[in-house]
């Protein structure tokens, strides 16, 4: 179910953009023909497996691999000793700078194991059974150390220290002792004391979220074939083959140009596949064994050893006048980073107040290492956490002031020309339109029954551009191939084909989109940050425009007229020269058939750094029913409005919104990392780590607000991340209104909800 609200400029003249063609990867996926990471195989391939620490924090005194090496069928064993001991160095790859020392030590523990599941050794053997047997024959002598997982406990004086070299960055005074606090950041504006003094009401709250996993269905998987002649290859499931290439090269001391990485079909990433875990190990094993090595994580390994996002504690203090104008806000965010620095607390801080025009604020963020898996990006990294806190506080403010929650947001909303809390001035945003769409939707006035409540929340995500490459090749039959360097995580192949088809004037079925390996297309930043349809789409569009220019030139040559007298309409060159009136158009297929005599193959490639990504805003409305006996929360109805720029393929955009909402509902109601007293994860499987399934959810209604982005040829904005930002608070606010108790700690699992009801 969906509505599309068009705003000018309308879709004048567009034939493909905005339609809903069958997805190009659909048949492969539903028939099982799609080749995911674990499907790839090479002759003579070995099986690689990882031995992992059973301790949350332990010094590695020794690793004895002799008995394992003696086992028949074992071809290679690697430990940290087989990797360069890298110095702390930040290197640009993925979406930004990564610390190579930390990345290396996350892939393979060096000196200390820092979390349950941390890799300490890896083997390659002729079969999975032999590899498993070899793992059991590796003896690791540990000195178990005290551990700390709770973020505030990790910040406390005297907490077990993860890294002796870690001194807090961002403090006013240079710290004299190491700490688990990696960094402090602060955003400020105005005079906080003056702002609170001007307030008629001041509210304070403390909000807690649990670490949750991205939960992609496909586990991490790769095949690596090392070659000493500089032709090593990796086939893997990731969000960026160029990222995999760079990190493998750096972690193994190889030249990036000596590694070719081919992306497989990807079964979900959500940010969790923007780094490497297995690929460097598989390459190192392959180098030692002299044979290709395949590695596939179990679900247990995915949970224990790959990035969830942070658990966090956020405090919010809001001051407002009695008519609902916010005068001051103070937000403090403490985010788990896991075993190495780098939580998403900075974007969490930057987004915390991004929907609001607040004159005075201070936002303080703390990045804290803990004995848990190093966090990885997860859809709008950091933003859902801070939005849960701020939007819960806004709901409390609405209740306290007796103001409609949407009206309260409208009163304080950012608009074009308003400076965002993180600095720049907003332009061409559709935030207020999302508020209006929910306010005017029948859902907002629909009656509620007993034990039911309705919650509202908003969210923001920046969206980014970045480096992208694309090529368009015209086939001799008049078809076109679009080649990009971005794995298709959320439907980008469809949008790439549609944008090319629109420019070329072809039916979309005549355009085949493919994702190329690192040797076959120019550099492309990974698929993430909701950038691909915007940035890579810009490269595709420009490449297609170059093709059209070339085709017009060829037609002009054939007709012997100036190229200025040739237009391109509906997939054909049209002669505008009055002296040649009546000439039939030259179709793309016709020109392609004559390419050998008009200049050769018809092809174009464009590489660019896309600028001007438009931010995304979302407004969500959620109805719940709470079972007072069990505390179980049922989602009854959910409506999500989002400024999407211009929807290239509306069904995919709706799918992104629905998917983000589903993940946010899981975060709100059920998902959490549960650790035992020794710091071992107790629920590392989908039976015990409860993600929502289709039967848990109603149909999620997506409302597409189209405020076009003038910096994109078709007006696109990123859409994949904003929809996961509001649901945590939308659900919590609905529960608040259903049971008349503000619950501030996620997940709102049945025992906690029941306890809250009992404590009323």
């Amino acid at each position, binding site marked *: 179910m969906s509505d599309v609200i068009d705003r000018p400029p309308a879709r004048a003249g567009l034939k493909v953009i905005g339609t809903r063609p069958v997805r190009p990867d659909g048949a492969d996926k539903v028939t099982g023909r799609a080749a995911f990471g674990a499907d790839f195989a090479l002759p003579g391939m070995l099986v690689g497996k990882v031995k992992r620490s059973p301790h949350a924090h332990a010094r590695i005194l020794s690793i004895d691999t002799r008995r394992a090496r003696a086992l028949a069928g074992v071809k290679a064993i690697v430990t940290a000793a087989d990797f360069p001991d890298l110095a702390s160095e930040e290197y640009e790859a993925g979406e*930004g700078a990564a610390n190579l020392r930390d990345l290396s030590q996350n892939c393979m523990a060096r000196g200390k194991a820092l979390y349950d599941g941390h890799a300490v050794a890896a083997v390659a053997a002729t079969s999975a059974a032999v590899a498993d047997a070899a793992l059991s024959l590796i003896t690791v002598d540990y000195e178990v150390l005290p551990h700390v997982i709770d973020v505030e406990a990790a910040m406390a004086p005297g907490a077990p220290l993860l890294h002796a070299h870690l001194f807090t960055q961002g403090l006013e005074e240079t710290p004299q002792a190491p700490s688990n606090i990696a960094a402090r950041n602060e955003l*400020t504006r105005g005079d906080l004391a003056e702002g609170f003094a001007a307030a008629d009401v001041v509210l304070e709250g403390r909000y807690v979220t649990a670490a949750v996993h991205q939960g992609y269905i496909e586990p991490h998987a790769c095949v690596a074939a090392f070659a000493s002649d500089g032709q090593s290859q990796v086939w893997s499931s990731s969000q960026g083959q160029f990222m995999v290439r760079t990190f493998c090269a750096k972690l193994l001391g190889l030249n990036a140009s000596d590694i070719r990485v081919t992306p497989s079909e990807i079964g979900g990433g959500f940010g969790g596949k923007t780094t490497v875990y297995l690929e460097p190990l598989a390459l190192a094993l392959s180098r030692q064994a002299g044979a290709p090595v395949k590695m596939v994580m179990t679900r247990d390994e995915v949970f224990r050893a790959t990035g969830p996002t942070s658990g966090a504690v956020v405090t919010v203090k809001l001051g407002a006048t009695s008519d609902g104008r916010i005068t001051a806000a103070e937000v403090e965010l403490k985010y788990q980073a896991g075993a190495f620095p780098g939580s998403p607390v900075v974007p969490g801080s930057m987004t915390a107040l991004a929907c609001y025009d607040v004159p005075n604020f201070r936002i303080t963020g703390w990045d804290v290492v803990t004995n848990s898996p190093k966090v990885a990006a997860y*859809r709008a990294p950091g933003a859902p956490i801070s939005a849960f806190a701020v939007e819960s506080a806004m709901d409390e403010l609405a209740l306290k002031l007796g103001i409609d929650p949407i009206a309260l947001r409208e009163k304080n909303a950012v608009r074009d020309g308003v400076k965002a809390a993180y600095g*720049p001035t907003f332009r061409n945003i559709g935030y207020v339109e999302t508020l209006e769409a929910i306010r005017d939707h029948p859902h907002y006035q629909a009656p509620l029954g007993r034990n039911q409540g309705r919650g509202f929340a908003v969210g923001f995500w920046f969206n980014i551009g970045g480096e992208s490459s694309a090529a368009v090749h015209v086939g001799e039959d008049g078809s076109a191939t679009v080649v990009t360097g971005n794995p298709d995580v959320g439907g980008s192949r469809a949008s790439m084909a549609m944008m090319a088809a629109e420019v070329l004037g072809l039916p979309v079925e005549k355009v085949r989109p493919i994702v190329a390996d690192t040797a076959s297309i120019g550099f492309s930043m990974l698929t993430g*940050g909701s950038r691909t349809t915007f940035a890579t789409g810009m490269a595709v569009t420009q490449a297609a425009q170059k093709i059209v220019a070339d085709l017009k030139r060829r037609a002009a040559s054939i007709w012997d007229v100036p190229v200025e007298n040739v237009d391109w309409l509906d997939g054909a060159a049209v002669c505008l020269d009055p002296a040649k009136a009546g000439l039939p158009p030259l179709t793309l297929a016709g020109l392609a058939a004559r390419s050998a005599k008009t200049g050769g193959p018809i092809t174009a490639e464009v590489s660019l750094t896309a600028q001007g990504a438009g931010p995304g805003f979302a407004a969500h409305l959620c109805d719940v029913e709470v079972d007072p006996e069990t505390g179980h929360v049922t989602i009854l109805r959910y409506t999500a409005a989002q400024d999407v720029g211009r929807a290239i393929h509306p069904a995919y955009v709706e799918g992104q919104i629905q998917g983000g909402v589903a993940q946010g509902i899981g975060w709100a109601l059920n998902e959490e990392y549960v650790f035992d007293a020794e710091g071992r994860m107790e629920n590392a499987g989908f039976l015990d780590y409860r993600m929502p399934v289709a039967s848990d959810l109603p149909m999620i209604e997506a409302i597409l607000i189209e405020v076009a982005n003038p910096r994109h040829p078709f007006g696109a904005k990123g859409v994949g991340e904003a929809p996961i930002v509001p649901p945590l608070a939308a659900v919590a606010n609905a529960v608040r209104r259903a049971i008349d108790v503000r619950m501030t700690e996620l997940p709102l699992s049945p025992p906690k909800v029941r306890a809250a009801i009992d404590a009323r």
Partner: protein
Amino acid sequence: MPHVVTACSTCRQFTDGLAEFDVEADTVRRMIQALDRRFPGLGDHIDRRMAIAVDGEIFQDAGAVALTPASEVYLIPRIGGG
């Protein structure tokens, strides 16, 4: 001359706490060079960690962007995504 603002504490470590300053420069690249001369280390910090917004638009590759005397430049932490 262009006005540079940073709301971010990591930049203010290099600027003795200053959050706003005017810089004589006609491109972003020259602005970064000027900032680095005035606040040693800030240029490298901007290159590695920051994105730059000029008159409201965030640039990831801003070096060649022209600045006017009326330009407002924001230094903000670089943004990724999921």
